[in-house]
């Protein structure tokens, strides 16, 4: 089966005062229809820029985004507009991503009105359906975002993304601004919707337990590059990249034993600047196994086991 979305050697550089910020630096990913690809990494790793570039909010510096077999970078403007309707986004902050001057109904109807999908009567029927779908009570139709809690607001964000019957949704940290009990409600909703409508997700998050829960495959990003890519269970069972291992061992475990357990695997140092990065592995300055080979040249992703890709010289 050919993938629904393919990202080929995607690069996004931002011009800054003293050079170029390599936000996304040559990322290759693909997602099959109905699956979820989790992208995980710390702040500044380029995961949000990746999502924004895929959805068309940023223009890539180079590379290709192939959706349904059509390269969005080379196809006609008209075709692109058409395809973009099938790609939507759910934003991180349910407070700032909703126009405070619009009611729930107006917010959800907006994509339909903007794209003149159907008659205004049908729009409101469709809006009511969408509200049911995401579990918003109809009595809230005329409420305004500021009257609602974070969980309900994020449901509006989900309904709005679903309005045009998309195939593919970029979820940019959709639950990280929410409390855990609400977070679980939204995660369940996203998984139910995926099952019911065969949606495909690119799920961006910094939270490893969330990404493990929702994803089929996981890509670990570090400073604009993909460090490791593999099926989600495998990543937690057999992490190969030193950064992935560091990341996994950094998660605080809610068991009393974690207090006494000596932490051996804490990674030292901090993320270096993504501006004009040096060639080679971006993680090398912090890596306990770094050798000269790490900074000699670019290290491509290598298949170390079926479906398990790692970008590390240790795997040679």
């Amino acid at each position: 089966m050919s993938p629904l979305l393919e990202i080929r050697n995607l690069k996004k550089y931002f011009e800054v005062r003293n050079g170029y910020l390599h936000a996304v630096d040559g990322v290759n990913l693909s997602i099959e229809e109905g699956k979820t690809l989790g992208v995980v990494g710390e702040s500044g790793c380029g995961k949000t820029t990746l999502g924004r570039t895929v959805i068309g909010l940023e223009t890539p510096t180079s590379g290709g985004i192939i959706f349904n077999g059509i390269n969005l970078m080379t196809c006609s403007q008209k075709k692109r507009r058409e395809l973009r309707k099938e790609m939507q986004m759910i934003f991180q902050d349910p407070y700032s991503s909703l126009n405070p001057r619009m009611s729930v109904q107006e917010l959800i109807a907006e994509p339909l009105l903007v794209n003149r999908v159907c008659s205004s009567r049908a729009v409101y029927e469709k809006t009511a359906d969408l509200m049911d779908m995401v579990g918003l009570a109809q009595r809230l139709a005329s409420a305004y975002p500021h009257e609602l809690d974070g969980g309900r607001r994020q449901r509006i964000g989900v309904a709005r993304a679903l309005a045009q019957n998309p195939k593919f949704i970029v979820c940019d940290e959709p639950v990280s601004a929410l409390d855990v009990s609400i977070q679980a409600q939204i995660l369940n909703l996203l998984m139910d919707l995926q099952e019911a409508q065969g949606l495909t997700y690119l799920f961006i998050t910094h939270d490893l337990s969330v990404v493990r829960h929702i994803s089929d495959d996981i890509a670990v990003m570090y400073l604009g590059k993909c460090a490791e890519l593999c099926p989600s269970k495998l990543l937690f069972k057999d992490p190969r990249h030193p950064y992935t291992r560091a990341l996994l061992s950094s998660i605080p475990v809610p068991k009393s034993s974690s207090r006494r357990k000596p932490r051996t695997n804490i990674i030292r140092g901090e993320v270096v600047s993504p501006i004009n990065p040096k060639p080679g592995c971006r993680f090398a300055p912090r890596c306990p196994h770094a050798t000269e080979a790490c900074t000699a040249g670019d290290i491509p992703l290598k298949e170390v086991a079926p479906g398990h890709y790692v970008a590390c010289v240790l795997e040679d």
Partner: protein
Amino acid sequence: MALSAKTRARKAKKHSEVKEVWRRFRKNKAAMIGLGLAILIVLVAVFADVIVPYDRTTTQVAEKRLQGPSSEHPFGTDHLGRDLFARIVHGSRYSLFIGVSTSVLSLVVGCLLGAACGYFGGRLDNVVMRLLDVFMSVPPVLLSLAVVAALGPNLRNLLIAITISCVPGTVRLIRSVVLTVVDQDFIDAARSYGASNLRIIVKYVLPNAIGPIIVHTTMNIANMILSAAGLSFIGMGVQPPAPEWGALLSSARVYMFRAPYLLYFPGSAILMAALSFNLVGDGLRDALDPRLRN
């Protein structure tokens, strides 16, 4: 059916929001005094003909020149024997008209340019802002003077002159408010589902920038009234015999020592008008400021 529910909801929201702002505004004594004064001035301007007929502003009675306040002429008479009370009452129309119309005019220009610059940024923003910098490097009074001097002193040119001197500030303000709104995620969201730039500016950006714009416009009215009076005072604005307040002051200058009341009354009128709109603007700013919401 669904649509009516929608409009009803919208009304309810507007209603409650206005009510909320009014609740906070009401608690501010100074602002309420300002509002009272402003309403008084508006009423006087609207009902000027009812209060005192217009011809009393022009009737010259030679034997009644420079008479102090009396029951017949509550504010006294000027050097041509005209009733000062009637002239001040009718003069309010000029002040109010100039203040409001120039503020609205600069608001329109400010919204167009400010929103465009803040939203699109880039080269357009650079060109417009540098151009405005040039305007702002000239003191506003001097700028107005230059415009009037070039076009000739009359009411229309006065309006143009004052508006030009006020536009740069308004554009800058609206641009900066727009910049903070554009930063928010809901603008990106609108882009992600394909809303056009025009729609985003009109439905997303401006409604969320409305608070500071209202405050600025109210304050502007006060400033414009002052500039108009100032320009008329030095003879570059509304020309006598029109009873504009600044013009009244100007012709009273000569009689400053013989008939000081000729200065007191128009002066107080100008002060009152400017102060009232300033107080209202101040009160609105506090009432609209979300940080003070509780």
